[in-house]
Every structure is written in structure tokens, then in C-alpha cells.
């Protein structure tokens, strides 16, 4: 390519100079005219205009094109704010939990009881970001309201949704006092006390106050541990004074967090029935799901949504490399070895599609073994189900009848599916990271909301921090406006999430944290930013040189020669004059 360009570009300047005769062939005289005849002014200027026209194209059009096409567009990012978030300088998440106290006693007594209890509670609490705040239910209407509420037992502490727990004091005459009972399906703690306890509520040594405080502390111990663990693993130590977790608690939390699925607003659940033979070929999964799964999913709906599909796979054999089950004479059962379980799922042949919906897929596989290999159990533990971390769960459903001549089951009824469904429910609960205590499901769910919100805030912050670092370390990557927009949105929602946390509105905080995390990820993984990351500056020489060689050299040489001639002529004129 160099050849034609070179030839053409320099030709015009060169050929235009064929204006003088070869000295040896000068027709005029062979004696003294070694000097070529003077070039006419006209041809001189013609030549200069031609050179100038090429320069004009290069400078007037070429330079703007170069400037425009190689400029790297970098929109401004709020770097300071982004790294501040990542370092935890702003937006410390705090978790003030509101706990309403409802007591059929005089308001001032309630007040002093609350004060005392709060005092004891604060002494017990080692984790400053997580605070329990006691307050009376509906202060202006205490007496009447309490009457009313006692009658209406299911009522959830007035209209205030932000109240985490309701403590209901109930006077009793008999039994051991004080004692407590946590409602399993509503966030209510019943505390039974004998009226004699009330008299001493104002003193710090009140047994009732101490009892309530200890109960509360126990109830929220796991949540505190989880949050503390989260803080210690995901952010710098300066973000909060992390109270030292006991070694075994930390290890347990670590173990649990490895199996929990990454948070997503929507999960896709796949229920699959695998059987190595032709039976059972049908299962009453819809009814079973409705009965056993739907209530659980319903209660999770504040945190995540779920979509479900189901499938039946007949003649689904185990992978050939999977060691076949062995018959255990003692247990009278076929057994699988514990260490082989990871290979149980025949990923190559069983159609467990990775993800067909937006969210991550949670797989639940129900395996019905052959009649001849039933019952099939896990060796040693004798369990018939196990959990695959971050993937789903497997359950083996051994047909109920083990008599040899019984006809194989052709369809699984809702009742037959019940144990498997319960197993799956438990597996789903631990896959979603629901804490194991306290006993009240609503409380556990609200704990999960807080933990998820906090972890989303941390993950969004650290993503933003990483983006800020990338922005500063790699000045050559382009940053489109969409990234700046996403970052702004993420920062905004982060702030809102933290505000909501501080206000105690955890549901809203989760919403905002979810958006913030999504936007932060979108900004960080913007496709057009990565193109030029691995393009060192030295390569640009290799890109420009083939261009600068053939085009720039004739241009520069022609211009230099003209300038030199002009300077020489100018000097000659001055010398002459």
C-alpha cells in the first residue's frame, strides 16, 4: 500500500519540478551554464499551492478526524463519594429495632418498666450498630388499646408495620413467673408475670425487667452475630466496632454463608422428578406445591419472588461413573456413600437447565429409585436427602411398599409427596439464608430482610469503590454516560437505603439496596468500558507508524524544502539589496 500512495503523493511535487534541463545536455552552451535556468514564479507558486492543498486536507480535515475518532469519552463520576461509600466513611448502616411493649398497667408504670428494661438491655448489648428500642404501644390510648388488643389476639401491634416485635405482658396468678412464649406465626412475645413484679419495676434490679432484657437479647443474638459477621467480612474494620465473635460462631456463619444463594429479587424454582424406570410417570406436584410450598413462598414474598416449573424425567439413569449403591445387610437398605453424593446428579444427561428465567435457578430433584434398589439411603446417616450448596436440594423418595410383588407406583399422590416437599421447604429455607432462631417465623423473616439489606448495601458500596479505582487507575478506558447515570442512581438509592435503615423501615431499605446493587453492577460491567483496557500505549506507535511513514514523510519533506528555498531566496534578496 505504501507504494502507490508514496508514488502518487510525491509524484506531483516531484514531477512539477522537472522544470530544468539536465546540466550536461543544456542546449545553450557547454561552457558555463551548470546552473539551471530560473524557475518561473508562476510554476513556483503553482507548486506551493499544490503542497498547501495537501497540507490543508491533512490539517483542516485530518486533524479534526483524528481528534474526534480517537478521543476517549469519559463522563465524570463522583469518585470521592464512591470511595467514601466503599470505605464506609458515609452511610454506616445502623439497625434500630423498635419493640413495642403492651402492658395492662398504668402508663407511668409501663414507662418506668420500659426505661429499666432498656437500661439493662443497653448494658447487655455489645454491638453498637444494632439497637433494640423499647417503646409503649400507642402512648395516648394505653389502657383502652391494651384491652382491645388482648381481645383481638391476632392484631399486630397497631398499624405500625415498622415495629419488629411486640411484647405483651400478661398477668397470671399461677405457674412459674416470669415466663415467656414466642408466637411462632406472629412477631409477638407473650410475657407472663405475677402482679407482684410490677411493684418493683422502677428499680434496676427488677426481676421482670431483667427477664425481658435477657429474653430479647437471646432472641436477637443470632441476628446480631450475623450482622457482625457481615460487617467484619465485607468492610474495613473502621466501619463499626465489631465485637469479637466467638470462633465457633464465626465458623458456623462462614459455613452457612457458603451454601446460601446470592441474593436476587426473583428466584426460579425447578422441581424435577427423576426415575430410572418408567414409573412413577405422574405426580400430583401442583397440589403438593400449593399445599406445602405456597405458604412458605408467600411469606418470603416481601424479600424475593419465585417462579416455579416442574418436570418429570423417566429412564433417568445415574451417571456411569457414579458408583452403584451397595446393599447394607444391617440396615436392610441400599446405601450411597457420603463422599459420592456430589456425583449423584447426572449433570450431563439430566435436563436441569441452568437458568431460563431472569433470576438464578434453584433445583429440587426428587429421585425415585427402582423397586429392586429400594429403599435407597445415605450410608451412616441413613438420610434420604441432602442439600447442594448454592444449587438446590436432592431428595430420594423410597416407595412406601417394599413387598416384592406390589405393583410399582404409577403416580405419586399429594400425600406421598408430603415428606419430600417438607424436605424441600427446609432446603429452600437454608438456601435462602433464613436464620435458624428465634422460633417465630416473622421474626426470622425480618431478620433476613435486615441481613439482606445490609449485605446489598455493602456489596453495592464495594462495587462502586472498585469502579472508582478502575476509573482512576486506567485513564485509557472510555466511560459512557450510562455508567455515570447508573452510578448516580446507585449512590442515591444507597443513601435512601441507609436512611430507611436508620428510620427502622427495613422493607424500604431492602428495596433501595436492591436497586442500588443492581445499578452498581450495571455500571461496573458496562461492556464498552473493557475494550481498551489491555491496549498499552506502545501499541499506538505500531498503529500510527504505517500511516505516518508513507503519508507524513512526503508531506513534511515537501514543506521543509519549500521553506528552505524560501529562506534561501529571502537571504539572497537581502544580500543583494
Amino acid at each position, binding site marked *: *500500500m505504501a*507504494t*502507490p*500512495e508514496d*508514488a*502518487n503523493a510525491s*509524484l*506531483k511535487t*516531484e*514531477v*512539477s*519540478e*522537472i*522544470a*530544468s*534541463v*539536465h546540466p550536461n*545536455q543544456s*542546449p545553450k552552451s557547454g561552457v558555463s551554464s551548470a546552473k*539551471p535556468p530560473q524557475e518561473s514564479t508562476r510554476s513556483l507558486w*503553482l507548486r506551493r*499551492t*499544490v503542497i498547501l*492543498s*495537501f497540507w*490543508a*486536507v*491533512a490539517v483542516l*480535515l*485530518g486533524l479534526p*478526524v*483524528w481528534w*474526534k*475518532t*480517537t478521543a476517549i469519552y469519559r463522563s465524570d463520576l463522583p469518585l470521592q463519594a464512591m470511595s467514601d461509600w466503599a470505605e464506609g466513611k458515609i452511610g454506616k448502616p445502623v439497625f434500630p429495632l423498635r419493640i413495642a411493649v403492651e402492658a395492662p398497667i398504668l402508663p407511668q408504670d409501663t414507662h418506668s418498666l420500659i426505661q429499666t428494661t432498656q437500661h439493662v438491655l443497653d448494658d447487655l448489648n455489645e454491638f453498637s450498630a444494632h439497637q433494640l428500642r423499647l417503646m409503649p404501644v400507642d402512648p395516648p390510648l394505653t389502657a383502652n388499646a391494651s384491652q382491645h388488643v388482648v381481645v383481638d389476639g391476632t392484631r399486630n401491634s397497631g398499624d405500625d408495620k415498622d415495629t419488629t416485635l411486640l411484647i405483651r405482658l400478661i398477668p397470671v396468678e399461677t405457674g412459674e413467673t416470669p415466663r415467656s412464649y414466642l408466637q411462632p406465626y406472629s412477631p409477638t412475645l407473650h410475657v407472663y408475670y405475677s402482679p407482684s413484679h410490677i411493684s418493683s419495676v422502677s428499680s434496676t434490679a427488677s426481676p421482670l425487667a431483667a427477664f425481658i432484657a435477657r429474653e430479647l437479647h437471646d432472641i436477637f443474638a443470632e441476628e446480631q452475630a450475623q450482622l457482625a459477621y457481615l460487617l467484619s467480612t465485607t468492610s474495613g474494620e473502621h466501619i463499626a466496632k465489631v465485637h469479637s465473635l466467638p470462633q465457633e460462631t464465626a465458623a458456623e456463619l462462614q459455613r452457612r454463608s457458603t451454601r446460601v444463594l446470592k441474593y436476587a429479587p426473583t428466584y426460579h424454582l425447578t422441581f424435577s422428578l427423576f426415575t430410572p424406570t418408567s414409573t412413577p410417570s405422574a405426580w400430583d406436584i401442583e397440589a403438593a406445591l400449593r399445599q406445602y410450598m405456597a405458604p412458605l413462598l408467600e411469606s418470603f414474598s416481601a424479600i424475593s419472588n419465585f417462579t416455579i416449573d416442574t418436570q418429570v424425567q423417566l429412564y433417568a439413569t445415574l451417571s456411569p461413573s457414579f458408583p452403584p449403591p451397595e446393599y447394607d445387610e444391617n440396615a436392610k437398605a441400599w446405601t450411597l456413600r457420603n463422599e459420592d453424593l456430589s456425583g449423584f446428579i447426572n449433570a450431563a444427561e439430566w435436563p436441569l437447565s441452568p437458568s431460563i428465567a431472569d433470576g438464578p435457578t434453584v433445583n429440587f430433584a426428587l429421585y425415585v429409585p427402582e423397586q429392586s434398589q429400594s429403599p435407597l439411603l445415605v450410608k451412616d446417616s441413613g438420610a434420604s436427602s441432602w442439600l447442594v450448596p448454592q444449587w438446590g436440594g436432592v431428595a430420594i423418595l423410597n416407595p412406601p411398599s417394599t413387598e416384592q410383588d406390589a405393583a410399582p407406583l404409577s403416580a405419586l399422590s399429594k400425600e406421598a409427596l408430603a415428606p419430600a416437599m417438607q424436605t424441600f421447604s427446609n432446603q429452600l429455607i437454608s438456601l435462602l439464608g433464613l436464620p435458624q432462631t428465634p422460633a417465630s417465623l416473622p421474626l426470622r423473616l425480618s431478620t433476613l430482610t435486615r441481613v439482606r439489606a445490609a449485605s446489598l448495601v455493602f456489596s453495592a458500596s464495594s462495587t462502586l469503590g472498585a469502579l472508582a479505582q478502575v476509573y482512576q487507575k486506567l485513564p485509557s478506558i472510555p466511560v459512557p454516560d450510562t455508567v455515570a447515570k447508573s452510578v448516580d442512581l446507585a449512590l442515591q438509592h444507597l443513601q435512601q437505603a441507609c436512611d430507611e435503615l436508620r428510620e427502622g423501615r427495613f422493607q424500604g431499605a431492602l428495596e433501595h439496596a436492591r436497586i442500588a446493587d443492581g445499578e452498581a453492577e450495571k455500571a461496573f460491567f458496562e461492556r464498552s468500558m473493557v*475494550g*481498551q483496557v489491555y*491496549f498499552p500505549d506502545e*501499541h499506538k506507535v505500531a*498503529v500510527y507508524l504505517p*500511516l505516518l511513514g508513507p*503519508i507524513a514523510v512526503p508531506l513534511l519533506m515537501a514543506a521543509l524544502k519549500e521553506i528552505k528555498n524560501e529562506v534561501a531566496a529571502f537571504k539572497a534578496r537581502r544580500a543583494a539589496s
Partner: protein
Amino acid sequence: MPKYDKALVFGAAAAVRLFLFTAFPSLPNLLAGRVEVSTPVTSFKRLQEGLFLYTHNVSPYDGGVYHQAPLLLPLFSLLPNPSYYPLATNILFVLVDLLSASALAQIADSGQAAVTRLFKSSRKELRWTSTAVAAGFLFNPFTFITCLSRSTSALNNLFILTAMAKACQGASITSLFALSFASYLSMHPIILFPPLLVLLYDVRTSKSKSPANPAVFAAIHTTILTGMIGALLGVSVLLTGSWDFVASTYGVRLLLPDLTPNVGLWWYFFIEMFDSFREFFLGVFWLHVASYMPGLTIRLRKQPLFVATTLTGIFAIFIPYPSIADAGLYLSLIPLFSHLFPLMRYTFLALSNTMYASFLGPAFYHLWIYAGSGNANFFYAITLVWNLGLSIIVGDSLYAALRDELEVERPELRDKEVTRI
């Protein structure tokens, strides 16, 4: 007798073309599939695809296959379907070739190649007759193949030749109309406007008693050309209902999204190009094509027709989607300047180079694509040789034209060896 000669040449050319069309019905499709002949922006197959979409009331650009001007569609939709009744289409393309040849003959008759208002070649008597020039076009194998493949660059060539012919006759409006059509069809002929403007000015001035003001003349003609191109674009918008066609036609020529191999220099370069520099080099390559125009027009101010001819040669080498049709146009225009032939130094080299590349090009393409025993470098290397050959002709003819000017200026230097100092 010359009348008779001309009729014979034209008749023979038409007869041979029609004979080939009818005797070998599969030949047009075979040729239309060759990368050397059909480019993404001129291919007849793509035109048929666009036509099909157009006649079925779908936007012809929706398929992403058709990249040609919208106005071709109503023209070709008037003809019967070429898959079943190819005769009408074939006759159209034969007519296009005959009209091009007649335009070329008009250029030759005008004598503007050797004698202009400001310049009289010292060898002006060395002239081919217009019939010979037309025959050179009609029986040029490149023109022949273009016609048989029914590539729309034949239409483009017709408009360029008509613009030149009418400019040589001083017919401003017709010339500008043809030029605007050529620019509308394939964009780059707009670069021919300045030399044709100079040519028009020279012819008009030598014909009339009172020369027009050059600035006013240029302004009027620029306005007319802009108006005509604007009108053509406007009609296209009316036809397709939106401006979307611009991105699919001129956008494709400017941004080179289709890297199908062709005889040009761009495709290989842009396959290898780093993505981040792609836009920059697109700008550089296009500027490179355009940058010759001002320098040549200024330097060869006295021979505008020669400038226009040389620019067609530069198009044949440097535009993004060149085909042998562009080379055919340039090689057919060269005989107009037969008075320069004695001054050209590398005629043999250029000729043998062109033939060498013409025969080896298809062979190397076969080795690469079908036999699999070669790779892309084989074909690219032969296109480099092909373009080298064309560059030699361009450079050599430029040398000859400048030498000719020098000899007019200094008659005493005729037939003497000169050297540059």
C-alpha cells in the same frame, strides 16, 4: 464511412452481449457471485433481494442485505422478474453499455482531451477516433463482465461518462444532472465535481464572447448540484418513507460494515484493524481518497478532463468497495489521451501487471475459498498487485501529462531527457 463503422461497433457489441446472455443463461448468475465483479454495494443479487422486499411492501433495507440507492427499485420493478424473464433486464444493461460508449465517443469527439481553452498538446494529432475509443470501452473485458453480471456499477459508470461528455460539450444542466445521479448512486463521484466544474467553465468560456465570473459560475453550479442531489434524496425519502436508507446506503460505504473480500485495499486492512482505531482509519482512508482532488485540480488546471480521468483511476484503487467495473471505466478513459502514450514509460509493465493480476486473482481466490490450499493473504497479495498495476498507470499517465505540459512550455526540450534537480 465513420458513421457506418460506429454502427458496426455498437451493433457487434450489443449482439455479442445478447448472444452470451442467451447462449449461457447461467453465466450472469455465475459472474454476479464473483467478488471481483460484484461488491456488496453493486451486486445484482442484492438488488433482487431489495426488489423482492420492495414489491412485498417491506422496507428493502430491513434485511440488511440491500445497500443500493432506493431509486433503483422502482426502475427495476417495472421490468419483469429477471429470474424468469431475464431478457428485459439484459437488454437494459446492454443499452446502458451502449449509452456509456456513446457518451465516451462524444468525449472523444469534443477533443477536450488534447486541446483545451488554456492548453494545446504538442502531440494533439495523435488521436484515436471516437469509434476506436468506444470500441475500447465496449470490448474491454472488464466492461463486458460487468455488463454480463448486471452489476449496478454499470449505471454508475454511465452517469459518470455522461457527466464528462456533457461537460465537454458545455451542457451544464445535463452534466450536473448526470453527476448528481452518479453521486446519488455511489457517493464518491461527488469528488469529480471540481474538475468537471473547471471543464465546464473552460468550455463555456471558450464558446461565449464574454467570460463569466468564475466565483459566480462556481456558486451557481454548486447550488444547482446541491439542489439536484437534495431532490434525489427527497424523492428517495418519499419512496421509502424515512431517512433510514441513508444509513444502509451511504453509511455502508462510509463505515464499511461488510468486509466481503473485493479487489480493493480496504477489507483486509479493516479485518486486522484494532476496534478502537477503526473509525480513525476509516476517516484516514476516506480523506486519502479525497485528498488527491484539490492537488490534481490545481496542478493540472489546464487539463480538467485529465484530472477527472485520473480521479476515476484513483477511485478504482482506493474506494472501499471497488470492482473491476471501476477499473474498466478508468482503462476505457485512458485511450482518450492517446497523445500521451509516447511519453509513458511503463506501458509494458503496467499492461503485463494488469493481465497477470486479472488471471491470477480468480485463481488465488479459488485456492483460498474453494480449494482451501491457500489463505486470505493469497488473494490480498494479488489485489495488491492489481492495484499496483493501476497505480503505475495513474502515476505514469500523470508523468506523461506533466511532461506534455513542459514540452508545450519549452518546445526546445522535446524528446530530450530531463531530470529532476
